[in-house]
Protein backbone atom coordinates (compact mmCIF):
# COMPACT_ATOMS: atom_id res chain seq x y z
CA UNK A 1 0.00 0.00 0.00
CA UNK A 2 1.19 3.48 -0.82
CA UNK A 3 1.80 5.21 2.51
CA UNK A 4 2.24 8.71 1.05
CA UNK A 5 -0.93 10.35 2.20
CA UNK A 6 -2.58 13.12 0.28
CA UNK A 7 -4.57 16.09 1.59
CA UNK A 8 -7.38 15.19 4.02
CA UNK A 9 -6.23 11.57 4.09
CA UNK A 10 -5.09 9.49 7.02
CA UNK A 11 -3.68 6.05 7.74
CA UNK A 12 -5.35 3.77 10.22
CA UNK A 13 -4.31 0.42 11.65
CA UNK A 14 -7.15 -1.94 12.38
CA UNK A 15 -5.54 -4.61 14.49
CA UNK A 16 -3.57 -6.80 15.09
CA UNK A 17 -5.30 -6.70 18.47
CA UNK A 18 -8.82 -5.43 18.20
CA UNK A 19 -12.06 -6.26 19.93
CA UNK A 20 -13.91 -6.95 16.68
CA UNK A 21 -11.46 -9.42 15.24
CA UNK A 22 -11.83 -13.18 15.38
CA UNK A 23 -8.04 -13.50 15.48
CA UNK A 24 -5.01 -11.32 14.99
CA UNK A 25 -4.53 -9.73 11.59
CA UNK A 26 -3.47 -6.24 10.64
CA UNK A 27 -5.69 -4.29 8.31
CA UNK A 28 -4.02 -1.07 7.15
CA UNK A 29 -6.52 1.44 5.84
CA UNK A 30 -5.95 4.69 3.97
CA UNK A 31 -8.93 6.91 4.60
CA UNK A 32 -10.14 9.99 2.79
CA UNK A 33 -12.60 11.48 5.18
CA UNK A 34 -14.57 8.43 6.22
CA UNK A 35 -14.11 6.59 2.95
CA UNK A 36 -11.62 3.74 2.58
CA UNK A 37 -9.49 4.48 -0.49
CA UNK A 38 -6.82 1.82 -0.02
CA UNK A 39 -6.44 -1.26 2.15
CA UNK A 40 -3.87 -3.92 2.82
CA UNK A 41 -4.12 -7.03 4.94
CA UNK A 42 -1.10 -8.37 6.78
CA UNK A 43 -1.11 -11.91 8.14
CA UNK A 44 1.13 -14.28 10.00
CA UNK A 45 0.64 -13.36 13.66
CA UNK A 46 -0.34 -16.91 14.60
CA UNK A 47 1.50 -18.91 11.96
CA UNK A 48 1.94 -22.35 13.52
CA UNK A 49 3.71 -24.16 10.72
CA UNK A 50 1.19 -26.98 10.68
CA UNK A 51 2.25 -28.17 7.23
CA UNK A 52 5.82 -28.68 8.47
CA UNK A 53 4.65 -30.30 11.71
CA UNK A 54 2.54 -32.81 9.76
CA UNK A 55 5.62 -33.86 7.77
CA UNK A 56 7.29 -34.86 11.02
CA UNK A 57 4.39 -36.72 12.64
CA UNK A 58 3.09 -40.19 11.83
CA UNK A 59 -0.24 -40.38 10.06
CA UNK A 60 -2.17 -41.23 13.21
CA UNK A 61 -0.59 -38.37 15.16
CA UNK A 62 -1.48 -36.08 12.29
CA UNK A 63 -5.22 -36.34 12.99
CA UNK A 64 -4.72 -34.56 16.30
CA UNK A 65 -2.76 -31.77 14.62
CA UNK A 66 -5.44 -31.18 11.98
CA UNK A 67 -7.93 -30.41 14.78
CA UNK A 68 -5.89 -27.32 15.53
CA UNK A 69 -6.08 -25.81 12.06
CA UNK A 70 -9.37 -24.13 12.84
CA UNK A 71 -11.03 -24.39 16.21
CA UNK A 72 -14.52 -24.25 14.74
CA UNK A 73 -14.24 -26.90 12.09
CA UNK A 74 -12.18 -29.67 13.65
CA UNK A 75 -14.54 -32.27 12.23
CA UNK A 76 -14.13 -31.26 8.58
CA UNK A 77 -10.39 -30.82 9.04
CA UNK A 78 -10.25 -34.41 10.32
CA UNK A 79 -12.38 -35.49 7.39
CA UNK A 80 -10.11 -33.96 4.79
CA UNK A 81 -6.99 -35.51 6.36
CA UNK A 82 -8.50 -38.96 6.90
CA UNK A 83 -10.06 -38.85 3.44
CA UNK A 84 -6.66 -38.24 1.85
CA UNK A 85 -5.08 -41.18 3.68
CA UNK A 86 -8.05 -43.45 2.89
CA UNK A 87 -7.71 -42.67 -0.80
CA UNK A 88 -3.97 -43.33 -0.73
CA UNK A 89 -4.38 -46.63 1.11
CA UNK A 90 -7.44 -47.59 -0.91
CA UNK A 91 -9.97 -48.27 1.84
CA UNK A 92 -13.49 -46.98 2.19
CA UNK A 93 -15.35 -46.57 5.47
CA UNK A 94 -18.43 -48.81 5.84
CA UNK A 95 -21.78 -47.16 5.25
CA UNK A 96 -22.62 -46.76 8.92
CA UNK A 97 -19.37 -44.89 9.55
CA UNK A 98 -20.04 -42.64 6.58
CA UNK A 99 -23.47 -41.71 7.93
CA UNK A 100 -22.01 -41.07 11.38
CA UNK A 101 -19.45 -38.80 9.79
CA UNK A 102 -22.12 -36.91 7.88
CA UNK A 103 -24.16 -36.39 11.05
CA UNK A 104 -21.19 -35.20 13.07
CA UNK A 105 -19.96 -32.91 10.31
CA UNK A 106 -23.37 -31.34 9.92
CA UNK A 107 -23.62 -30.80 13.68
CA UNK A 108 -20.21 -29.20 13.46
CA UNK A 109 -21.43 -26.99 10.60
CA UNK A 110 -24.42 -25.86 12.67
CA UNK A 111 -22.30 -24.84 15.64
CA UNK A 112 -19.81 -23.04 13.40
CA UNK A 113 -22.58 -21.06 11.69
CA UNK A 114 -24.17 -20.24 15.06
CA UNK A 115 -20.92 -18.81 16.37
CA UNK A 116 -20.34 -17.02 13.07
CA UNK A 117 -23.73 -15.36 13.33
CA UNK A 118 -23.09 -14.51 16.96
CA UNK A 119 -19.70 -12.91 16.38
CA UNK A 120 -21.09 -10.96 13.47
CA UNK A 121 -23.91 -9.64 15.65
CA UNK A 122 -21.50 -8.43 18.33
CA UNK A 123 -19.59 -6.50 15.72
CA UNK A 124 -22.81 -4.71 14.81
CA UNK A 125 -23.46 -3.99 18.48
CA UNK A 126 -26.30 -6.51 18.53
CA UNK A 127 -25.03 -8.26 21.65
CA UNK A 128 -28.37 -9.81 22.60
CA UNK A 129 -28.16 -11.97 19.53
CA UNK A 130 -24.65 -13.08 20.42
CA UNK A 131 -25.91 -14.42 23.74
CA UNK A 132 -28.84 -16.19 22.06
CA UNK A 133 -26.56 -17.82 19.49
CA UNK A 134 -24.00 -18.92 22.06
CA UNK A 135 -26.81 -20.43 24.11
CA UNK A 136 -28.07 -22.51 21.17
CA UNK A 137 -24.53 -23.44 20.19
CA UNK A 138 -23.79 -24.83 23.63
CA UNK A 139 -26.62 -27.35 23.15
CA UNK A 140 -25.05 -28.54 19.91
CA UNK A 141 -21.61 -28.74 21.53
CA UNK A 142 -23.14 -30.91 24.25
CA UNK A 143 -24.40 -33.27 21.55
CA UNK A 144 -20.93 -33.48 20.02
CA UNK A 145 -19.40 -33.88 23.47
CA UNK A 146 -21.68 -36.85 24.23
CA UNK A 147 -20.15 -38.84 21.39
CA UNK A 148 -16.58 -37.58 21.13
CA UNK A 149 -15.75 -36.60 24.69
CA UNK A 150 -14.70 -33.06 23.90
CA UNK A 151 -16.34 -29.87 22.75
CA UNK A 152 -14.02 -28.36 20.18
CA UNK A 153 -10.96 -30.42 19.27
CA UNK A 154 -12.56 -33.80 18.92
CA UNK A 155 -10.01 -36.01 17.04
CA UNK A 156 -13.03 -38.17 16.32
CA UNK A 157 -12.39 -39.57 12.86
CA UNK A 158 -10.06 -42.48 12.17
CA UNK A 159 -8.74 -43.92 8.94
CA UNK A 160 -11.53 -46.11 7.61
CA UNK A 161 -14.11 -45.17 10.20
CA UNK A 162 -14.85 -43.28 13.39
CA UNK A 163 -13.61 -43.73 16.93
CA UNK A 164 -16.87 -44.42 18.75
CA UNK A 165 -20.37 -45.43 17.83
CA UNK A 166 -23.34 -43.34 18.97
CA UNK A 167 -24.48 -43.99 22.53
CA UNK A 168 -27.90 -45.47 23.31
CA UNK A 169 -30.81 -43.13 22.61
CA UNK A 170 -28.68 -40.59 20.80
CA UNK A 171 -31.12 -40.07 17.93
CA UNK A 172 -33.94 -38.95 20.24
CA UNK A 173 -31.60 -36.60 22.04
CA UNK A 174 -30.37 -35.01 18.82
CA UNK A 175 -33.88 -34.69 17.41
CA UNK A 176 -35.26 -32.94 20.48
CA UNK A 177 -32.37 -30.45 20.50
CA UNK A 178 -32.62 -29.80 16.75
CA UNK A 179 -36.40 -29.35 16.77
CA UNK A 180 -35.98 -26.85 19.56
CA UNK A 181 -33.18 -25.12 17.65
CA UNK A 182 -35.29 -24.71 14.52
CA UNK A 183 -38.07 -23.00 16.45
CA UNK A 184 -35.67 -20.66 18.21
CA UNK A 185 -33.83 -19.92 14.99
CA UNK A 186 -37.07 -18.78 13.36
CA UNK A 187 -37.59 -16.34 16.21
CA UNK A 188 -34.02 -15.06 15.88
CA UNK A 189 -34.45 -14.62 12.16
CA UNK A 190 -37.54 -12.54 12.84
CA UNK A 191 -35.51 -10.45 15.25
CA UNK A 192 -32.91 -9.84 12.55
CA UNK A 193 -35.41 -9.08 9.82
CA UNK A 194 -37.63 -6.70 11.81
CA UNK A 195 -34.79 -4.62 13.24
CA UNK A 196 -34.61 -1.43 11.21
CA UNK A 197 -31.07 -0.54 12.34
CA UNK A 198 -29.87 -4.00 11.40
CA UNK A 199 -31.39 -3.66 7.94
CA UNK A 200 -29.83 -0.25 7.42
CA UNK A 201 -26.41 -1.57 8.28
CA UNK A 202 -26.59 -4.72 6.18
CA UNK A 203 -28.82 -4.28 3.13
CA UNK A 204 -26.74 -3.12 0.17
CA UNK A 205 -23.54 -2.92 2.23
CA UNK A 206 -20.39 -4.80 1.24
CA UNK A 207 -21.92 -6.13 -1.96
CA UNK A 208 -20.07 -8.78 -3.93
CA UNK A 209 -21.31 -9.43 -7.43
CA UNK A 210 -21.24 -12.84 -9.05
CA UNK A 211 -18.45 -11.88 -11.46
CA UNK A 212 -16.23 -10.29 -8.81
CA UNK A 213 -16.74 -13.15 -6.34
CA UNK A 214 -15.70 -15.81 -8.84
CA UNK A 215 -12.75 -13.71 -9.98
CA UNK A 216 -11.58 -13.30 -6.37
CA UNK A 217 -11.81 -17.08 -5.87
CA UNK A 218 -14.19 -16.89 -2.91
CA UNK A 219 -16.14 -20.01 -1.88
CA UNK A 220 -18.67 -20.97 0.72
CA UNK A 221 -21.52 -18.78 2.05
CA UNK A 222 -20.07 -15.47 0.71
CA UNK A 223 -20.06 -16.96 -2.80
CA UNK A 224 -23.47 -18.61 -2.52
CA UNK A 225 -24.90 -15.29 -1.34
CA UNK A 226 -24.11 -13.94 -4.80
CA UNK A 227 -26.12 -16.67 -6.52
CA UNK A 228 -23.40 -19.11 -7.60
CA UNK A 229 -24.51 -22.67 -6.82
CA UNK A 230 -21.12 -23.98 -5.78
CA UNK A 231 -21.08 -26.53 -2.99
CA UNK A 232 -18.54 -29.35 -2.88
CA UNK A 233 -21.14 -31.62 -1.28
CA UNK A 234 -23.15 -31.38 -4.50
CA UNK A 235 -20.50 -30.76 -7.15
CA UNK A 236 -17.84 -33.21 -6.05
CA UNK A 237 -19.74 -35.47 -3.62
CA UNK A 238 -17.91 -37.32 -0.89
CA UNK A 239 -19.14 -39.74 1.79
CA UNK A 240 -22.85 -40.46 1.26
CA UNK A 241 -23.92 -36.95 0.27
CA UNK A 242 -24.91 -38.39 -3.10
CA UNK A 243 -27.70 -40.40 -1.45
CA UNK A 244 -29.02 -37.49 0.58
CA UNK A 245 -31.53 -34.93 -0.56
CA UNK A 246 -30.62 -31.33 0.18
CA UNK A 247 -30.53 -28.08 -1.69
CA UNK A 248 -27.71 -25.58 -2.07
CA UNK A 249 -28.84 -22.41 -0.30
CA UNK A 250 -28.31 -19.31 -2.41
CA UNK A 251 -29.31 -15.68 -2.41
CA UNK A 252 -29.05 -13.14 -5.20
CA UNK A 253 -27.91 -9.83 -3.80
CA UNK A 254 -24.49 -10.68 -2.38
CA UNK A 255 -24.58 -8.12 0.42
CA UNK A 256 -24.13 -8.72 4.15
CA UNK A 257 -27.85 -9.42 4.61
CA UNK A 258 -27.71 -12.15 1.98
CA UNK A 259 -24.66 -13.79 3.56
CA UNK A 260 -26.36 -13.99 6.94
CA UNK A 261 -29.52 -15.33 5.31
CA UNK A 262 -27.50 -18.06 3.57
CA UNK A 263 -25.99 -19.16 6.88
CA UNK A 264 -29.39 -19.32 8.58
CA UNK A 265 -30.82 -21.33 5.67
CA UNK A 266 -27.86 -23.69 5.78
CA UNK A 267 -28.52 -24.46 9.43
CA UNK A 268 -32.08 -25.53 8.51
CA UNK A 269 -30.70 -27.56 5.62
CA UNK A 270 -28.16 -29.27 7.90
CA UNK A 271 -30.95 -30.21 10.30
CA UNK A 272 -32.80 -31.75 7.36
CA UNK A 273 -29.67 -33.71 6.34
CA UNK A 274 -29.21 -35.02 9.88
CA UNK A 275 -32.84 -36.19 10.07
CA UNK A 276 -32.48 -38.08 6.79
CA UNK A 277 -29.17 -39.62 7.86
CA UNK A 278 -30.68 -41.03 11.04
CA UNK A 279 -33.51 -42.53 8.98
CA UNK A 280 -31.21 -44.08 6.36
CA UNK A 281 -28.34 -45.15 8.62
CA UNK A 282 -27.82 -48.95 8.55
CA UNK A 283 -26.49 -51.10 11.36
CA UNK A 284 -23.06 -52.57 10.88
CA UNK A 285 -19.36 -52.37 11.68
CA UNK A 286 -17.52 -49.07 12.06
CA UNK A 287 -14.41 -50.16 10.18
CA UNK A 288 -13.98 -52.16 6.97
CA UNK A 289 -13.95 -55.85 7.78
CA UNK A 290 -10.79 -57.86 7.28
CA UNK A 291 -8.50 -54.87 7.80
CA UNK A 292 -6.44 -53.90 10.82
CA UNK A 293 -8.05 -50.47 11.01
CA UNK A 294 -9.86 -49.87 14.28
CA UNK A 295 -8.57 -53.01 15.98
CA UNK A 296 -5.11 -51.72 16.79
CA UNK A 297 -3.08 -48.63 16.12
CA UNK A 298 -0.29 -49.87 13.89
CA UNK A 299 2.65 -47.89 12.61
CA UNK A 300 1.00 -47.23 9.29
CA UNK A 301 2.96 -47.19 6.10
CA UNK A 302 1.02 -45.56 3.33
CA UNK A 303 1.77 -46.62 -0.26
CA UNK A 304 3.49 -43.97 -2.40
CA UNK A 305 1.20 -41.68 -4.31
CA UNK A 306 -0.54 -38.36 -4.17
CA UNK A 307 -4.10 -37.19 -3.78
CA UNK A 308 -6.12 -33.98 -3.75
CA UNK A 309 -9.29 -34.29 -1.73
CA UNK A 310 -11.77 -31.54 -0.98
CA UNK A 311 -14.76 -31.24 1.30
CA UNK A 312 -17.26 -28.53 2.15
CA UNK A 313 -16.14 -26.85 5.33
CA UNK A 314 -18.64 -24.56 7.15
CA UNK A 315 -16.79 -21.63 5.58
CA UNK A 316 -16.29 -22.98 2.08
CA UNK A 317 -14.15 -25.31 0.05
CA UNK A 318 -11.51 -27.10 2.08
CA UNK A 319 -8.90 -29.10 0.25
CA UNK A 320 -5.84 -31.09 1.07
CA UNK A 321 -3.01 -32.20 -1.19
CA UNK A 322 -1.03 -35.08 0.23
CA UNK A 323 2.07 -36.79 -1.14
CA UNK A 324 3.23 -40.05 0.36
CA UNK A 325 6.65 -41.61 -0.25
CA UNK A 326 5.87 -44.96 1.34
CA UNK A 327 7.14 -44.16 4.83
CA UNK A 328 5.13 -43.69 8.03
CA UNK A 329 4.97 -39.88 7.73
CA UNK A 330 3.52 -37.81 4.89
CA UNK A 331 6.08 -36.39 2.46
CA UNK A 332 4.14 -33.20 1.88
CA UNK A 333 0.80 -31.90 3.06
CA UNK A 334 -0.69 -28.74 1.61
CA UNK A 335 -3.75 -27.42 3.39
CA UNK A 336 -5.99 -25.29 1.26
CA UNK A 337 -8.21 -23.64 3.81
CA UNK A 338 -11.50 -21.96 2.95
CA UNK A 339 -10.72 -18.78 4.86
CA UNK A 340 -7.49 -18.01 3.01
CA UNK A 341 -9.18 -16.79 -0.20
CA UNK A 342 -11.92 -15.10 1.81
CA UNK A 343 -9.40 -13.05 3.77
CA UNK A 344 -7.53 -12.26 0.57
CA UNK A 345 -10.73 -10.88 -0.94
CA UNK A 346 -11.33 -8.54 1.99
CA UNK A 347 -9.20 -5.53 0.90
CA UNK A 348 -10.87 -5.18 -2.53
CA UNK A 349 -14.27 -5.66 -0.91
CA UNK A 350 -13.93 -2.79 1.55
CA UNK A 351 -12.68 -0.25 -0.98
CA UNK A 352 -14.97 2.78 -1.19
CA UNK A 353 -17.00 1.81 1.85
CA UNK A 354 -17.28 3.78 5.06
CA UNK A 355 -14.83 2.91 7.78
CA UNK A 356 -17.75 2.23 10.14
CA UNK A 357 -18.89 -0.59 7.85
CA UNK A 358 -15.50 -2.30 7.69
CA UNK A 359 -16.10 -4.24 10.89
CA UNK A 360 -19.49 -5.45 9.71
CA UNK A 361 -18.19 -6.53 6.31
CA UNK A 362 -15.16 -8.31 7.76
CA UNK A 363 -17.30 -10.16 10.29
CA UNK A 364 -19.89 -11.17 7.70
CA UNK A 365 -17.17 -13.05 5.78
CA UNK A 366 -16.74 -15.25 8.88
CA UNK A 367 -12.96 -15.33 8.78
CA UNK A 368 -10.77 -17.40 11.03
CA UNK A 369 -7.20 -16.16 11.22
CA UNK A 370 -6.00 -19.33 12.84
CA UNK A 371 -6.85 -21.27 9.72
CA UNK A 372 -5.59 -18.73 7.21
CA UNK A 373 -2.20 -18.61 8.95
CA UNK A 374 -2.09 -22.33 9.74
Amino acid sequence: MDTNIGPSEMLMHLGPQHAIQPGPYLLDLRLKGELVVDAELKMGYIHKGIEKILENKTYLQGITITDRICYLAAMSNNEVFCGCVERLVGIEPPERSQYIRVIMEELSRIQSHLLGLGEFSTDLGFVTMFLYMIREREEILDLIDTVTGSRITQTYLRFGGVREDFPEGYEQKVMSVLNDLEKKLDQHEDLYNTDSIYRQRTVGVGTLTKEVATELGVAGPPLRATGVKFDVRKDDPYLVYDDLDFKVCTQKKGDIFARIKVRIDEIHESVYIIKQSFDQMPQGPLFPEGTPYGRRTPVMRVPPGEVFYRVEDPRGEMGMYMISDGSDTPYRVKIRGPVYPTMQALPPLILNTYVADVAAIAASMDGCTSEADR
Partner: protein
Amino acid sequence: MIDANFILNSLTKTFPNDILEPSIESDKRISSYVNTDAIFDVCKHMLDNLECNHLSCECGVDYPDRNELEVVYHIASYEHPVVITLKVKLPRDDPVIESIVPVYWNANWYERETYELYGIMYKNHPDLKPLLLMDEMLGDWPLRKDYEGFPNKTSKNLV
Protein backbone atom coordinates in the same frame (compact mmCIF):
# COMPACT_ATOMS: atom_id res chain seq x y z
CA MET B 1 -20.29 -30.90 -21.82
CA ILE B 2 -16.85 -30.35 -20.39
CA ASP B 3 -15.36 -33.42 -18.74
CA ALA B 4 -11.92 -34.82 -18.01
CA ASN B 5 -11.40 -36.27 -21.49
CA PHE B 6 -12.48 -33.09 -23.21
CA ILE B 7 -10.11 -30.96 -21.13
CA LEU B 8 -7.17 -33.27 -21.70
CA ASN B 9 -7.81 -33.44 -25.45
CA SER B 10 -8.06 -29.70 -25.68
CA LEU B 11 -4.84 -29.21 -23.73
CA THR B 12 -2.80 -31.74 -25.67
CA LYS B 13 -4.11 -30.39 -28.97
CA THR B 14 -3.35 -26.75 -28.15
CA PHE B 15 0.01 -27.38 -26.48
CA PRO B 16 1.39 -30.55 -28.10
CA ASN B 17 4.97 -29.93 -26.92
CA ASP B 18 4.32 -28.51 -23.48
CA ILE B 19 1.94 -31.00 -21.85
CA LEU B 20 4.11 -33.87 -20.60
CA GLU B 21 2.99 -37.24 -19.21
CA PRO B 22 -0.72 -36.42 -18.95
CA SER B 23 -2.90 -38.90 -17.10
CA ILE B 24 -6.56 -39.26 -16.20
CA GLU B 25 -6.80 -40.52 -12.63
CA SER B 26 -10.58 -40.59 -12.49
CA ASP B 27 -13.42 -38.81 -14.25
CA LYS B 28 -12.85 -35.83 -11.95
CA ARG B 29 -9.07 -35.68 -11.66
CA ILE B 30 -6.46 -34.98 -14.34
CA SER B 31 -2.77 -34.68 -13.70
CA SER B 32 0.00 -33.50 -15.97
CA TYR B 33 3.45 -31.99 -16.08
CA VAL B 34 3.85 -28.71 -17.94
CA ASN B 35 6.93 -27.05 -19.39
CA THR B 36 8.11 -24.14 -17.27
CA ASP B 37 7.74 -21.55 -20.03
CA ALA B 38 4.23 -22.58 -20.98
CA ILE B 39 2.43 -22.45 -17.63
CA PHE B 40 1.05 -18.95 -18.11
CA ASP B 41 -0.40 -19.75 -21.55
CA VAL B 42 -1.83 -23.07 -20.35
CA CYS B 43 -3.60 -21.36 -17.45
CA LYS B 44 -4.91 -18.64 -19.73
CA HIS B 45 -6.23 -21.22 -22.18
CA MET B 46 -7.95 -23.10 -19.38
CA LEU B 47 -9.60 -19.97 -18.04
CA ASP B 48 -10.73 -18.69 -21.43
CA ASN B 49 -11.82 -21.88 -23.17
CA LEU B 50 -12.37 -24.61 -20.60
CA GLU B 51 -14.38 -22.81 -17.88
CA CYS B 52 -11.66 -23.54 -15.33
CA ASN B 53 -12.33 -20.31 -13.49
CA HIS B 54 -11.27 -21.29 -9.98
CA LEU B 55 -7.70 -21.68 -8.81
CA SER B 56 -8.18 -24.01 -5.90
CA CYS B 57 -4.63 -24.23 -4.68
CA GLU B 58 -1.02 -23.59 -5.57
CA CYS B 59 1.92 -24.94 -3.64
CA GLY B 60 5.52 -26.05 -3.80
CA VAL B 61 7.10 -29.44 -3.18
CA ASP B 62 10.77 -30.09 -2.53
CA TYR B 63 12.63 -33.09 -3.98
CA PRO B 64 16.25 -32.83 -2.82
CA ASP B 65 17.10 -36.28 -4.26
CA ARG B 66 16.33 -35.11 -7.79
CA ASN B 67 17.64 -31.61 -7.00
CA GLU B 68 14.31 -30.22 -8.08
CA LEU B 69 11.44 -28.17 -6.79
CA GLU B 70 7.93 -28.62 -8.10
CA VAL B 71 5.18 -26.05 -8.26
CA VAL B 72 1.77 -27.72 -8.18
CA TYR B 73 -1.40 -26.00 -9.36
CA HIS B 74 -4.86 -27.36 -8.59
CA ILE B 75 -7.26 -25.71 -10.96
CA ALA B 76 -10.97 -26.33 -10.47
CA SER B 77 -14.13 -24.75 -11.73
CA TYR B 78 -17.38 -23.32 -10.45
CA GLU B 79 -19.16 -24.95 -13.40
CA HIS B 80 -17.88 -28.54 -13.54
CA PRO B 81 -16.36 -30.91 -10.95
CA VAL B 82 -13.06 -31.66 -12.72
CA VAL B 83 -9.88 -30.70 -10.86
CA ILE B 84 -6.75 -30.40 -12.98
CA THR B 85 -3.37 -30.86 -11.32
CA LEU B 86 -0.57 -29.14 -13.21
CA LYS B 87 3.00 -29.62 -12.12
CA VAL B 88 6.09 -27.69 -13.14
CA LYS B 89 9.63 -28.84 -12.42
CA LEU B 90 12.20 -26.21 -11.47
CA PRO B 91 15.94 -26.49 -10.72
CA ARG B 92 16.53 -26.32 -6.98
CA ASP B 93 19.34 -23.75 -7.09
CA ASP B 94 17.60 -21.23 -9.36
CA PRO B 95 13.82 -21.67 -9.28
CA VAL B 96 12.18 -18.98 -11.39
CA ILE B 97 8.70 -19.21 -12.87
CA GLU B 98 6.17 -16.91 -14.47
CA SER B 99 3.49 -15.64 -12.09
CA ILE B 100 -0.12 -16.49 -12.93
CA VAL B 101 -1.63 -13.63 -10.95
CA PRO B 102 -2.79 -11.87 -14.16
CA VAL B 103 -4.89 -14.96 -14.94
CA TYR B 104 -6.07 -16.01 -11.49
CA TRP B 105 -6.28 -13.08 -9.10
CA ASN B 106 -6.20 -15.23 -5.96
CA ALA B 107 -2.86 -16.80 -6.89
CA ASN B 108 -1.32 -13.70 -5.30
CA TRP B 109 -1.12 -14.97 -1.71
CA TYR B 110 -0.40 -18.57 -2.73
CA GLU B 111 2.64 -17.37 -4.66
CA ARG B 112 3.83 -15.13 -1.86
CA GLU B 113 3.57 -18.07 0.52
CA THR B 114 5.37 -20.45 -1.83
CA TYR B 115 8.07 -17.84 -2.29
CA GLU B 116 8.80 -17.41 1.41
CA LEU B 117 8.56 -21.13 2.23
CA TYR B 118 10.44 -22.55 -0.77
CA GLY B 119 12.34 -19.66 -2.33
CA ILE B 120 10.59 -19.92 -5.67
CA MET B 121 10.84 -16.61 -7.54
CA TYR B 122 7.79 -15.46 -9.46
CA LYS B 123 8.39 -13.21 -12.46
CA ASN B 124 5.90 -10.36 -12.91
CA HIS B 125 4.26 -10.89 -9.55
CA PRO B 126 2.72 -7.55 -8.48
CA ASP B 127 3.97 -7.59 -4.89
CA LEU B 128 6.35 -10.44 -4.06
CA LYS B 129 7.15 -10.25 -0.34
CA PRO B 130 6.72 -12.50 2.72
CA LEU B 131 3.16 -13.15 3.82
CA LEU B 132 3.23 -15.37 6.89
CA LEU B 133 6.81 -15.40 8.16
CA MET B 134 8.74 -12.57 9.72
CA ASP B 135 11.12 -10.72 7.45
CA GLU B 136 14.19 -12.08 9.25
CA MET B 137 13.35 -15.61 8.13
CA LEU B 138 13.46 -14.74 4.45
CA GLY B 139 16.13 -16.90 2.85
CA ASP B 140 15.75 -19.81 5.27
CA TRP B 141 13.09 -21.47 3.05
CA PRO B 142 11.67 -23.44 5.99
CA LEU B 143 9.56 -25.96 4.08
CA ARG B 144 12.52 -27.27 2.11
CA LYS B 145 13.61 -30.66 3.36
CA ASP B 146 17.11 -29.54 4.38
CA TYR B 147 15.89 -26.78 6.72
CA GLU B 148 17.62 -27.16 10.07
CA GLY B 149 14.61 -26.10 12.11
CA PHE B 150 14.22 -26.86 15.78
CA PRO B 151 16.34 -26.56 17.86
CA ASN B 152 19.14 -25.06 15.77
CA LYS B 153 17.29 -21.99 14.60
CA THR B 154 15.02 -21.44 17.55
CA SER B 155 16.96 -18.71 19.30
CA LYS B 156 18.30 -17.06 16.15
CA ASN B 157 15.87 -14.18 16.11
CA LEU B 158 15.57 -13.76 19.84
CA VAL B 159 19.10 -12.56 20.56
